[in-house]
């Protein structure tokens, strides 16, 4: 069986912030570079990022990378690798300056310097007081970033393959990555992109949860491909949740609503936060509010016919206040919950927002796996950056505005490392003889199958299982059952059926292929979460509570280590956290409190 082969020096999968940033490095180094994307680049999910980019420019007040590093280590609940965090925080200023040179329209102050605003968790002088560190372009930071970097790529002659879906990573007999297979949606034809360097920048997989703020395209394609190719996935138990997403839709309702006096109520209309946080009540921190909401629902006090959500009530506020101070929220509620919050409360649930784990990488962007006693052995030819990768800088929890920084810094370093590795001018390694057969067989099996389960049912099964068994607050019994359940769902997914067998724009086939990626991330998340018997950062278990011996439930003696989940055998290994920064002293372990 033959499949057309296109040869490039480098192929980048994903055209969001990380993919575009790495492609700039590759193309400007004179390498023939292809970028594959399911959507037009400026419609990547990076467009939804509004908060800004963290960088210690010190434009508004004194700041430095070491303080930023401290905040990031603390935010990560000490699970972040301190060498990678130092690298990222040091490179932040350069990352912002590069963007400025690409034409990014940052907000400015009167003297022409970039305006910086404060953001949660970013402090001066090692946690002393808030500092202005976030650089933004109004409420369109991600949008402006994508446009600036896309233009730069066009100038550098990057070749874009838009509305193409990558299918599988191709590794040769010695484990080198030699390219990817991909499908052109317009025709349904499959092509092999034969490359000397392959960079994954495919974003997160928030769609594994029923309630997610992620766009529909965030199906963890890079993670699925990596897992099928024998690459482990790191720290997938750590997902950041936001307490108030619109139930059923996932669209975010900002904290500002509770700031204006919004109250969370259960089925008996009780203001339950008074029991969980008598002082802060509804304004307690995100994790406290999310846990309280989940407990109310788990104990049968949820609202609605399925008792599966909480109500966010602002009906007691003056309508004029709502219209003046919360106009966007009223619109979101009307559009996505079907209720006018002036008249009725908004149904909300804790909602998945960001994936801290991913494909294990070194801070230079090279993908690393354990081999012969070395926990960070390089997979030749393979690089990853952005939300799909785990460097690991976010550890167990991410600080706001560090995600855009992550994709800029590691997108660049993945591109630089690939360019460096290709300098020697070595020829393309041979494709494995069965590369074409393997991918053809996978797609043909899907096309020919009859009597299987439809894609929407499979998606629903994944999303409901993950939301119920591995949501924001985790219960030992639910996690155990969740592992069994998600493996049952996996079995059903091996039997996916699509009715539409056409070639051109067959969205059913693409959605089925995405589902095969989602299930890998779902399994990794469930199994890793069940295995980690402590609470740390965003992973909070009921059987690992706050005690004097283990503050916040964190157990550094046994669990200061990264999880690595392997698809083969559905097994887990661990690797040490890097506690040694590049040039400064270790930021010593202590209890994370704000």
């Amino acid at each position, binding site marked *: 069986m033959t499949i057309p082969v296109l040869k490039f020096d480098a192929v980048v999968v994903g055209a969001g912030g990380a993919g575009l940033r790495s492609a700039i490095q590759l193309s400007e180094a004179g390498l023939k570079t292809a970028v594959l994307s399911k959507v037009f680049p400026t*419609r990547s999910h990076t467009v*939804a990022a509004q908060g800004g980019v963290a960088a210690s420019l010190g434009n508004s007040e004194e700041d430095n990378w070491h303080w930023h590093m401290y905040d990031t280590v603390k935010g990560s609940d000490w699970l972040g690798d301190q060498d990678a965090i130092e690298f990222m925080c040091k490179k932040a200023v350069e990352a912002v300056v590069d963007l400025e040179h690409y034409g990014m329209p940052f907000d400015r102050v009167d003297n022409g310097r970039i305006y910086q605003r404060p953001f949660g968790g970013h402090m001066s002088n090692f946690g002393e007081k808030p500092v202005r560190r976030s650089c933004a372009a109004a409420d369109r930071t991600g949008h402006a970033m994508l446009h600036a970097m896309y233009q730069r790529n066009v100038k550098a002659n990057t070749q874009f393959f838009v509305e193409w879906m990558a299918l599988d990573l191709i590794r040769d007999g010695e484990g080198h990555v030699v390219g990817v297979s991909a499908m052109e949606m317009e025709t349904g034809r499959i092509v092999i992109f034969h490359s000397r360097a392959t960079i994954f920048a495919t974003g997160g997989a928030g769609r594994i949860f029923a309630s997610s703020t992620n*766009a529909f*395209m965030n199906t963890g394609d890079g993670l699925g491909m990596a897992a099928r190719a024998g690459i482990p996935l790191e720290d997938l138990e750590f997902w950041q949740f936001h307490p108030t997403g619109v139930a059923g839709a996932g669209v975010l309702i900002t904290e500002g609503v509770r700031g204006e006096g919004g109250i969370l109520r259960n089925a008996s209309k009780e203001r339950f936060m008074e029991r969980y946080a008598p002082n802060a009540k509804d304004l307690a921190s995100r994790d406290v509010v999310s846990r309280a909401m989940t407990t109310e629902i788990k104990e049968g006090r949820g609202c609605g016919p399925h008792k599966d959500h909480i109500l966010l009530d602002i009906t007691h506020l003056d309508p004029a206040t709502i219209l003046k101070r919360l106009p966007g929220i009223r619109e979101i509620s009307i*559009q*996505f919950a079907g209720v006018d919050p002036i008249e009725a409360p908004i149904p909300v649930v804790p909602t998945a927002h960001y994936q801290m784990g991913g494909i294990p990488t070194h801070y230079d962007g090279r993908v690393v796996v354990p081999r012969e006693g070395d926990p960070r052995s390089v997979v030749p030819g393979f690089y990853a950056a952005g939300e799909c990768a785990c460097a690991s800088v976010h550890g167990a929890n991410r600080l706001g505005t560090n995600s855009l920084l992550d994709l800029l810094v590691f997108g660049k370093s993945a591109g630089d490392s690939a360019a460096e590795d290709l300098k020697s001018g070595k020829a393309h390694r041979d494709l494995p003889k069965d590369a074409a057969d393997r991918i053809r067989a996978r797609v043909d099996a899907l096309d020919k199958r009859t009597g299987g389960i439809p894609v929407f049912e499979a998606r*629903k099964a994944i999303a409901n299982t993950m939301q119920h068994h591995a949501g924001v607050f985790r219960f030992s019994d639910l996690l155990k059952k969740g592992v069994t359940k998600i493996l049952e769902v996996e079995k059903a997914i091996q039997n996916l059926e699509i009715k539409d067998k056409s070639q051109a*724009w067959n*969205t059913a086939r693409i959605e089925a292929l995405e589902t095969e990626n989602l299930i890998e991330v779902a399994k990794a998340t469930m199994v890793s979460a069940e295995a980690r018997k402590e609470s740390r950062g965003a992973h909070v278990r009921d059987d690992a509570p706050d005690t004097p011996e283990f503050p916040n439930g964190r157990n550094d003696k046994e669990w200061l280590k990264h999880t690595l989940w392997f698809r083969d055998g559905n097994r887990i290994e661990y690797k040490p956290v890097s506690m040694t920064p590049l040039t400064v002293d270790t930021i010593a372990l202590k209890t994370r409190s704000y």
Partner: protein
Amino acid sequence: MEAEAFNRLRWRCVRRGMLEVDIALTRFLDSSFATLSEAGQQAFAELADFDDLELWHLISGQKVCEDARLAAIVAMLRAPVDSVPVT
């Protein structure tokens, strides 16, 4: 609209950069698109080509659509619907 053109439009509606736009376009496509005239369908396809933020500003009423042809579709997109697609 021909099947192939519709399928292409469908992909460009169900895979957007912002969840808000994903939902708004997908549910419109499933619930109302077939009822539009050919000109209305063409106008919807033009809107689907807008950037996500631009489109969201129109759908959420933060900006007003000056083009009457497109504004009629925006008004339909703005109508509240209580079901959200599963994708």
